[in-house]
């Protein structure tokens, strides 16, 4: 079988966010593979190490720099990579059109991708891709097994969690807790440089953005930052309760 792992390159969550000219500025910032997607790469590798005969292909759509994230996936153990190179900002619905087409071309039967994008906070890619392919999907997966053609595992829902079974082909979205992604070792980083990283143009996918991005701003809510020293426990507790009751007026 073939597993497609979709990955995105995003701002490292620890980096501070800057906005200039109505969009988030990424120059001179640390960019990494979206950690949510990393769980998908790791899970594909684990399924194979658990005895599934699979080729694992990583896909990314984005500017030239996105190939760094694909190299990381290759160094983790993915077999080959496809980079659809474009500077166009595509929303999840548009992006799903590319992922679905690549999945068909590659005859993939399992697609793994992150449950929420760390930059656009979108949840939509997994289900949108599944709908285009007429596949089922399972989201927010925290445990996964594959026996024959049957996936089973556990995923989070609105209240609590569920165990499930699902027949391939399917889309699975991943999240923290599913696994601990491995770090690429130096020998594997060297090996990854020899692996195939195929570049594709956007034209062939017949995709245009569905949304117009009209601006971004950082709305900093001014916080009072009245921070008390707690060395004198009684005094600090009394002062805090007084502030919440009589200044903020948020408790009775």
């Amino acid at each position: 079988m073939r597993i497609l792992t979709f990955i995105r390159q995003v701002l490292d969550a620890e980096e501070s966010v800057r906005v200039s000219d109505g969009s988030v500025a990424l120059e001179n910032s640390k960019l990494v593979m979206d950690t949510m997607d990393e769980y998908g790469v790791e899970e594909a590798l684990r399924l194979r190490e658990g005895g599934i005969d699979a080729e694992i292909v990583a896909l990314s759509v984005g500017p030239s720099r996105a190939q760094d994230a694909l190299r990381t996936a290759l160094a983790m153990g993915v077999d080959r990579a496809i980079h659809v190179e474009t500077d166009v900002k595509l929303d999840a619905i548009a992006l799903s059109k590319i992922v679905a087409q690549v999945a068909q071309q590659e005859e993939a039967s399992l697609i793994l991708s992150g449950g929420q994008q760390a930059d656009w906070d979108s949840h939509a890619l997994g289900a949108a891709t599944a709908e285009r392919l007429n596949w089922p999907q399972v989201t927010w997966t925290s445990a996964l097994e594959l026996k024959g053609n049957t996936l089973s595992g556990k995923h989070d829902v609105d209240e609590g969690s569920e165990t499930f079974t699902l027949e391939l082909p399917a889309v699975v979205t991943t999240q923290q807790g599913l696994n601990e992604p491995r770090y690429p070792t130096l020998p594997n980083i060297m090996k990854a440089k020899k692996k195939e990283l195929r570049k594709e143009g956007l034209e062939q996918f017949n995709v245009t953005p569905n949304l117009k991005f009209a601006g971004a701003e950082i709305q900093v809510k001014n916080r009072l930052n009245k921070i008390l020293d707690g060395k004198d426990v009684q005094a600090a507790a009394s002062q805090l309760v007084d502030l919440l009751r009589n200044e903020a007026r948020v408790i009775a």
Partner: protein
Amino acid sequence: MILLVVEHAHGKVSKSSYEMITAARELGGEGAVTALVLGSAVASVATEVALAVDQVLVADLPELAQYDSEMWAAAVAQIATEGEAKVVLIGGSRSGREYSPRVAIKLNSPLLEDVISLKTNGEALVAEHYTYLARVTETVEATGPVVVVSVKPGVFAVAAPRTVAAEQFDVDLNLPARRLQVTGKTAESSSRISLSEAEIVVSGGRGVGSAEGFTQHVEGLADRLGAAVGATRAIVDAGWRPYSEQVGQTGKTVQPKVYIAVGISGAVQHLSGMNKSKVIVAINRDAEAPIFKIADYGIVGDVNQLVPAIIEELRK
């Protein structure tokens, strides 16, 4: 028409549905506000929501007893097509955000996700939503004969009911078979007020020290204040608290009047679930913890000593 899919639980309309009704009413000229009720034994839901909208469509079917993304998407897309909906509003719950992309693909429409504002400029629907783990507010525009929108819970005002009930109509649906088979459920219920509905939230992190520390300090303070209880990912992963209490990127998003963070250092993933709270209070040992940067009030010190003193102070 504006179609909104009613979120409900235990035979009652959820608060998020009344928030969507506000969003729909504010759009005004896009047509009658039509509520779609999907589920099994949902007569009470339909009757309740009829007091707040122009029309109610009901699919009360045994096979809809349990949510399924493909069935929900098929139902909503069918009704939206038959009713020539211009806007489809879906709750920004985990399930809503799961099936709404499928609806958008079926309708060949754009998707506005998890919006915090929604208006029309005559040509396009203009919405704001959070990006970068809720640190940035982005404005997006969508055009088309129909636009699918998921609405972030806890942002829009709760719509007031009217005096006249709208008419209810039963609808026939062509539903697909369920492909995701649910084999077990871990339902997590709590006798406390729910996180998304609470005006006060007391949350605990690793700094509480132990499950016992959490019970004593976080639950103790919450009980005193009549507050909901929240927890960080680390606490939930450690098995000290159920997942339903998790606040953050992979848990719930809350916007209470006051959020009290006890022993929480403030990882960006946690902050994204609570940084829109009106007032933030932090109690933590480490003065350098990121939580203090977004706190209105705080105390640097030992949670084990400070929280009991605060509870004692509240008794006065």
